[in-house]
């Protein structure tokens, strides 16, 4: 789950011989003109001065896109940095969920019978439907990312609306499932009650179930909010015209949320269900 090597190379390395480009882009920033010319003057007579800075800076100013932040030289560098950052963030998320998966695995190995029995009390119809909903939403998101790359703003907005709606459907179904489980006394705590040979460890199963699906649902909620905001922006503004990186990264996040569920579903609902 680490960043692919393709995004990890340095964009700036490739421009070693490109001094002119770096200087030209730099001059598009907030440098006082006077000092810049002084640099050029002091440079005369330096044997290995790479290139003379261009006197005409208008070209550099016009080519810099409006979303380019001052610390970056060009849009490609900004895009690479953002993408690498997103993959690293997802790596931290993997480790975050990893702690819970480790706890779940350890206790399932300790108490296989209790966990199998408890697993049979989960509501597989809800879980199964939700898996389908989330996988479909991820597919729609993939199309939205593609549409953003092709600069089709209306389609991006529509597809994002659909993705967000499917995310909402997931949350509603999950909510109904939680409500039903509470009514069946499957929420750990005082009212917890289960017909099982080892109720204490069955309760532990449900504790882990609520925790893991709860934190996952929190991620889904954040995703739905973000996707809704993005859909609005794509619909109303030109924010993503010629600038599809944010949509791309949102897509990565949404696929991550999806993939966590793809691991959660079999671990919680399917393991030893008919054993």
């Amino acid at each position, binding site marked *: 789950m680490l960043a692919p090597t393709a995004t990890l190379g340095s964009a700036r390395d490739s421009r070693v011989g490109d001094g002119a480009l770096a200087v030209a882009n730099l001059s598009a920033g*907030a440098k006082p003109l006077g000092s*810049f010319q002084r640099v050029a003057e002091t440079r005369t007579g330096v044997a290995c001065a*790479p290139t003379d800075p261009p006197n005409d800076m208008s070209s550099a100013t016009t080519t810099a896109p409006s979303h380019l932040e001052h610390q970056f030289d060009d849009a490609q560098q900004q895009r*690479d*940095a953002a993408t690498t950052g997103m993959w690293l963030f997802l790596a931290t998320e993997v480790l975050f969920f990893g702690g819970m998966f480790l*706890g779940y695995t350890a206790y399932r190995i300790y108490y296989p019978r209790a966990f199998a029995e408890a697993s049979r009390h989960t509501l597989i119809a809800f879980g199964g439907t939700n898996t389908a909903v989330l996988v479909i939403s991820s597919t729609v998101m993939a199309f939205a990312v593609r549409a953003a790359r092709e600069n089709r703003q209306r389609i991006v907005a529509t597809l994002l609306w659909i993705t967000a709606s499917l995310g909402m459907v997931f949350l509603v179904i999950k909510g109904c499932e939680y409500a039903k489980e509470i009514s069946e006394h499957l929420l750990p705590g005082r009212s917890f009650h289960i017909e099982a040979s080892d109720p204490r460890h069955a309760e532990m199963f449900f*504790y882990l179930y609520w925790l893991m699906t709860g934190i996952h649902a929190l991620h889904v909620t954040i995703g739905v909010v973000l996707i809704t905001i993005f859909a609005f922006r794509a619909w109303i503004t030109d924010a993503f015209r010629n600038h599809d990186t944010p949509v791309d990264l949102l897509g990565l996040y949404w696929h991550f949320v999806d993939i966590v569920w793809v691991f959660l579903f079999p671990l919680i609902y399917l393991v030893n269900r008919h054993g």
Partner: protein
Amino acid sequence: MITQAPPQPEPPLTSHQSPLTYLNVRHTIRSWLLTTDHKRIALLYMVSITLFFFIGGAAATLMRLELLTPQGDLVTSETYNKLFTIHGVVMVWFFLIPSIPTVLGNFLLPMMLGARDVAFPKLNLASWYLFMAGGAFAVFSIITGGVDTGWTFYTPYSSTYANGHVIAMAAGIFIAGFGSIATGLNFIVTTHKMRAPGMTWSRLPLFVWSLYTTSIILVLATPVLAMVLTLMALERAFGVGIFNPALGGDPLLFQHLFWFYSHPAVYIMILPGMGVVSELIPCFARKKIFGYHFVAYASVAIGVLGFLVWGHHMFVSSQSIYAGMIFSVLSFMVAIPSAIKVFNWTATLYKGSIWFATPMLYALGFIGLFTIGGLTGLFLASLAVDVHVHDTYFVIAHFHYIMVGGMVMAYLGGLHFWWPKISGRMYPEGLAKFSAFTIFAGFNLTFFPQFILGYLGMPRRYRVYAPEFQVLNVMSSAGASILAVGYLLPLAYLLWSWKYGKVAGPNPWRATGLEWTTASPPPKDNFQTTPIVTEGPYDYDAQAAEEEWEHAHA
């Protein structure tokens, strides 16, 4: 490091205006609290961690006072428990882990790479706010009664029996942890994507290599800490067992998850210090670093191995003996890259033209104290010896030699070295040398007796001890008072020099490295033009330095 760009000229001067630097570009409080300039964020961190350092130091002072006598006559046992918890939590999460990365790292990383800023400046500022929010929770928990679990929060004590605001403290660490993750992420992306043209991986200063490895650990280990603290806090809040054996849980699982973070965290604390020393030694020996690639890859090796040794904290915690053996062997292996570094630093000194300026004194202090701390770590990594000294003062002395003798020395060394860059002023050299010696002497007097105490069997975390331990404890407390003076001195003279110190100029040490090619203090965007790098770092000439010295003193 030679760059093709000419020396950076001072920004344009009008007749009665000082040059525009990152410090005087704006003066409002708002411009500091909402800054996205990595240099200003570094200063925000510097002020904050200094504050936390003195909170943690105050707790340690009270502990050392209590330990002057074998009886418990100053504080109650409960208060003593809270004191060592405050000391541990504050020093680990609110001073040591952020210290070098967030202060010196934030300030220097973009400049060493030839960049205008880190990759995500807003995220950088958000890290500081997360750090401060976490700190606020921790201070709240301290003021409203404290926590007595020790910094390790072992379950089931912390999740079931402990009094005090364990959840608030855990929340503070959780939030500050996300600040750490954001910093680490930012540094990794910056190192990958923000390097100046020509700045290849094997031309990176070694400080950058060590920050890079540290960041990887921050990003991969901290989420696990966040998870384990969440589980512990939930168990405490709702009484659902995951670690409490009375509820069917396993306390060992907590220790596994906790040390999976907290052992790599030791390397978060020491690797940046090693990076600083790798910068100081070549500069003050006027010699190219010996074995650049070995030192660089040793950082990475320490980072990787550091993830595989957590079980050595659990030798006596009912972990399987076979797991113990494997963790023991892996722990020994960490000594190899650490020793590579020490040998390479020593080899760099050989035939160098050594200049005993204050930063060099700290660097040499680091090498000696780190070696003692590292070698006693091998005692603890040996299964049989660990059973004897486990949870004694031997352990305390060992990790203070690494953390204080290593990391704090390196932090102070780096702070003195780059102080002219940060403030534009020189610190008073004589006073600085005096305080460096004071710290070295005070440190050894404080912690060396603790090795003996631990070996003789004095357990950690008790305020009452057998009378025969008193002499060594009095020595230790006396050393602590010297150490306190040693720490207060730099605070005073650095503050003084901020305004009254001698103007430093761009490169007072005549050091190589991109950060020295720009003005002191640097302009807001670091460089007037993006530098172009054509050579590796540490292009020093010891022979020329010797001849120059002889010429000057002829």
